[in-house]
Each structure stands twice: as C-alpha cells, then as structure tokens.
C-alpha cells in the first residue's frame, strides 16, 4: 500500500484514542513512578504518556506473553487426554504509542518464531495487533537505534506512525491496510498535511554493526569476554526487558489428574538455561553466557535469521543493575 500522510490536531488525537478505547482493547503507556513507564490496557487518555523515552518493559508480551498456555491435559490410567487452546479467543489489540525500535522487533521475533515451523500462538497474536507507533522526539545516552539500521522515525512494523509536529499537532503516516481500516472508522479526524516539520530526536551512531558481525566470527576465545563481563551479576533483566529476546522454558504443572503445559520467558544469562541432565554445563561461567548473548544477537542471528537480534532500544543497558552498557561493548568489539 502507498503511504498516505495526514495531519492530526492535538484534540483529534484524544478523540481517536477514545474512539479506539471505547470499542476495543488498546494497550498504551502510562507513567507509574518516577522511573517506570508501563503499558496498560485501556488507560484514560489523560494518563497516556507521549513523552517517555522507553517503557520499562517492551511490548513483546502482546505477541509473546511471559506465560503462554500451550494445552491442558487430564491423565487417566490409560492415557493423557489433551485439550487444545482455542486460539480464536485471542482478542484484537491496538498498540498505541509504541516507539519505532519496539515495532521493528515484531519482524525479528517472527524470524525466530516462524523460522521453520510457524508458531501458532505467536502468529495468531501477531495477526491480531494493529500498531500505532510514535516517532521519538526524545532520546538519551542509552539509545542506539541508528547503529542497528533503524532510526527514531523508522516505520518498520508500524501500521500508523504518529510524529510530533513543531506546532504541537501530530502527523499520521498511514502505512498499511490495517492502518487504513482504522482511519476509515473516524476519517474526519485526519486532515490534509499542514506542512509543519516533524520533531525527531537525534540518536548518535555508535558503531558499525557490519564490522561488529564480521569481527565476532574470530573472537570466540578472546580474553575480551572475561574482562568485559566481570561486573555482570548474571541476572535476566536484560533478556526480559529486551523486545527481541525470545528464549523460553516449557513446563508442565499438574494438580491431581489435571494439568497444563505452558511456556514462559527464560534467559541465556542463567546457568540453569544450559545445564544438561548429566550435570555438565557447556556455559559454566558468566563470561560464556555474556558472550552467548552478544554472539546470538550480532553473529548467529544475522547468519541464520538474516536479521540483527537488536533494535537499539537501550533497555538492556538502562535497566542493568551494574551498567553493562551493550552499545559500549559493541563499540569495543568493532575495534577489537
């Protein structure tokens, strides 16, 4: 579809939001404390933030929930009776105010979840979302989207992109049929473009990702990994806040005869992640797990998924308790 550009007055933005919120599920960011921005379902428009740099968690949970039931079962003496999940009950959701880095992550997640076999749960959830992105008019020292082939106003994964204009109104880029359908519900709110300029944040280019990817192929045994991960305390914060990290664990939980199988978020930063039944652990120490994190995103994924495993949102670094600044390490790897 050809992109259409329209203008939305500030008041119209509120009308658009309220129209959507009154008729369906809408997932929008609100400020919950001085350091936390959370996405919530159908908050009041007055609580929705347009000023946040990044939400605490990404919105990946909409397509990859932290717990996803895969099926229910009942065990009898003879057999296990499986009851499938009805995927048709997954509701349509409009994601509102997602920044371009987070919307770009959906395609990368698809490259993981639909690599060989199409993951039904993920695919259905992805099908049900409409993404209204908000270009970034603010950034901070943790942002590095421009170093991973994106920008503060890139439109990957977006159905409609809103951008702040210099006069306080918003520009709407209608990018897909899904976006067009949404606009057609309230066409009067969208006016002809006013010619005002967009306010877009500056994000410094920190490294050449192609150079990093090429260097990574020869540094598996380099002392860099131990030296640069000494302060890593081995928690899973970076993986869980990451919009791209997709590792999960599968568990069965039973109560009497009945039970369920679910998958839940997991992290390669944990030692249990690779512990074998024999007791052997191929990634015994944290430096090996830190290496895996970087290798997976910047070497294995470009190789296998034809995509970088990173959108430069900076969450891993801003939420790290010990300031393991990923961009800084990638910068060092560029020159290793």
């Amino acid at each position: 579809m050809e992109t259409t550009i329209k203008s939305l007055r500030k008041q119209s933005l509120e009308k658009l939001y309220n129209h959507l919120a009154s008729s369906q599920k809408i997932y929008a960011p609100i400020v919950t404390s001085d350091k936390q921005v959370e996405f919530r379902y159908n908050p009041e428009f007055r609580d929705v933030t347009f000023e946040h740099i990044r939400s605490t968690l990404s919105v990946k949970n909409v397509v990859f929930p932290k717990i996803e039931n895969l099926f229910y079962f009942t065990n009898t003496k003879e057999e296990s009776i499986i009851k499938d999940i009805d995927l048709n009950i997954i509701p349509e959701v409009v994601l509102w105010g997602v920044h371009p880095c987070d919307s770009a992550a959906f395609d990368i997640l698809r490259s993981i979840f639909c690599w060989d076999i199409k993951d039904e749960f993920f695919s259905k959830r992805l099908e049900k979302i409409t993404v209204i992105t908000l270009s970034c008019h603010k950034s901070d020292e943790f942002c590095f989207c421009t170093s991973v082939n994106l920008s503060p106003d890139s439109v990957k994964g977006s159905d409609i992109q809103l951008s702040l204009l210099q006069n306080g109104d918003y520009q709407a880029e209608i990018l897909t049929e899904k976006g067009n359908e949404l606009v057609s519900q309230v066409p009067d709110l969208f006016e002809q473009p006013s010619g005002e300029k967009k306010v877009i944040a500056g994000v410094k280019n920190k490294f050449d990702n192609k150079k990093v990817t090429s260097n990574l192929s020869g540094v598996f045994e380099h002392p860099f990994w131990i030296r640069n991960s000494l302060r890593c305390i081995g928690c899973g914060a970076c993986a869980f806040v990451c919009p791209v990290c997709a590792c999960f664990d599968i568990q069965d939980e039973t109560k009497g005869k009945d039970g369920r199988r679910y998958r839940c978020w997991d992290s390669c930063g944990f030692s249990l992640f690779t512990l074998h039944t024999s007791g052997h652990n191929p990634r015994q120490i944290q430096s090996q797990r830190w290496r895996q994190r970087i290798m997976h995103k910047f070497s294995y994924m470009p190789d296998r998924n034809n995509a970088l495993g990173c959108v430069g949102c900076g969450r891993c670094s801003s939420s790290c308790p010990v300031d393991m600044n990923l961009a800084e390490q990638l910068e060092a790897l560029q020159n290793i």
Partner: protein
Amino acid sequence: MNSLVNRAKMLLEEKSVNVVIGYEAGTGGTARPAFISESADAEKLIYNEHCVHNLAVYLSKQEVRKMGKIGIVAALPVMRSILMLIAEHQVDPENIVIMGISHDGSLLDIENIQVMKDYISKSDPGNPERYKDKLAELNKLSMEERFEYWQKELSKCIKCYACRQACPMCYCTRCAVEVNQPQWISVKSDISGNMEWHILRAMHLAGRCISCGECGRACPVGIDCHLLTMHLSDQVYKYFRVYAGLSEKMSSVLSTYEPNDKENFII
C-alpha cells in the same frame, strides 16, 4: 579521591593484591563496579554518591575468585556483608584487603577484621533511616491490606532474579528455584510463582540480610523487595536481639538453636 587511587596503585604494585574491586565512571554520570588489575588503571577509580552497588557480591563469583588476592572498596554495607560472608565461611579474610570508605567518603585505614568491626560498631546497625518511614507505613496496615499490597507489587515481578544476583548473601551456586527434580518453586512468573519466590527469598535472608537495599535497587520493574528483608531484620532483632554483619563469628540465627531462644512466636 587521590588517597583511594594511591592506595590501589600501591597494593597492585606491591602485589599485595591481584585485583582491586571498586567503582569507575558509568553511563551518563553514574558509577559502576570496576575491576582494576594494572596499577596504571587505578586512575579510573572513583568514589561519589553514585557508588551504591554492594561490591561484596563479587567475592563469591568464580571468575573473580580465580584472580587471587582481592582489594575491595568497602563502604559500611560492604564491610558488613564481608563479615557475614566470613561468618558463613564464604570468604577467607586472608584473601582480601579492605579499602574502607567512611560515611563522608574518605579512605579508612582498615588493617584487619578487628579494626573493621570496631568501625562498624560505631554505626546504627538497624535499617537505614531512609527506609524507616515506608517500613512503618506498611507495618500499620492490617494483615489483609499488607497481603494485598504485596500481591499488587509482586504482580510486576518478571522473575529476572536481579534481586538475588545483586545480593552478596545469595551466593548459592544452585538456588532453590534452580532445583528442578522435583521442581519446588514454580518457574513461571504469575502471582503465585512470584509470591513463592519472594517469600522464599525473604525467609532465606532473615537474620542474614544487612539491609543494604541492593535487591530493591537492582529490580528493573521497581519492586521495593528490600522492604521484605528489612522487615525481617527488624523481626529478627525483636526476637533474638541480633543484627547481621556485626561479627565474623556469628552463627545463623534461624538455623541455630540456643537453649535460651524465645519460643513465644511459635504458635
């Protein structure tokens, strides 16, 4: 801070230590843990109000242990953690040099464990002042209200275990949540799984927590989980008249029986 840098340089040059664990400048004017093994790099060391991480957590990390003798920049919470780690036989006092930092940020002359204990004994061993209001506020709530408060707070938990990893006293090489045959603690991060985890964590730290607040600071989703362990520190003091991290000879309050232990809290 010249005295800290000079001390680190001297320790490294004399080969009294192989590495100094301290702080360096972090992203955006903050500070972060640093590992200095060359005396020329000692200049990187800083100490200011951003240096809040409890560095004692690194004393049980495999890669750090392998480095040999360790110099460690230690403000009061770090010193108390070190005493606990010695008491629990996790740290050999012969293997560390303590570069103590006083309340006002100046370098202390900590020659040995006794000097450190004397210094610690001059400070208030209870929970830090800045947490007392919130603790008192929670204590005023009824049991139901408190349960509701924690259910709401803990529903945010994503089970990243930053609280555990940031804690010097959570040094187990295999945590109870990592035992999966059988699976004692639910892996998933829903309200019951989260409650199980946080109750387990708090109980394992009762009588061992030195109230540094690192667990809460490390939490990426802003759960004040330090209030749980701090409340238990108050409770342990109430029943046993003991605070953690004041002596290197302390036995664990909740896993040791003394004939004069009060039993009136056992219903």
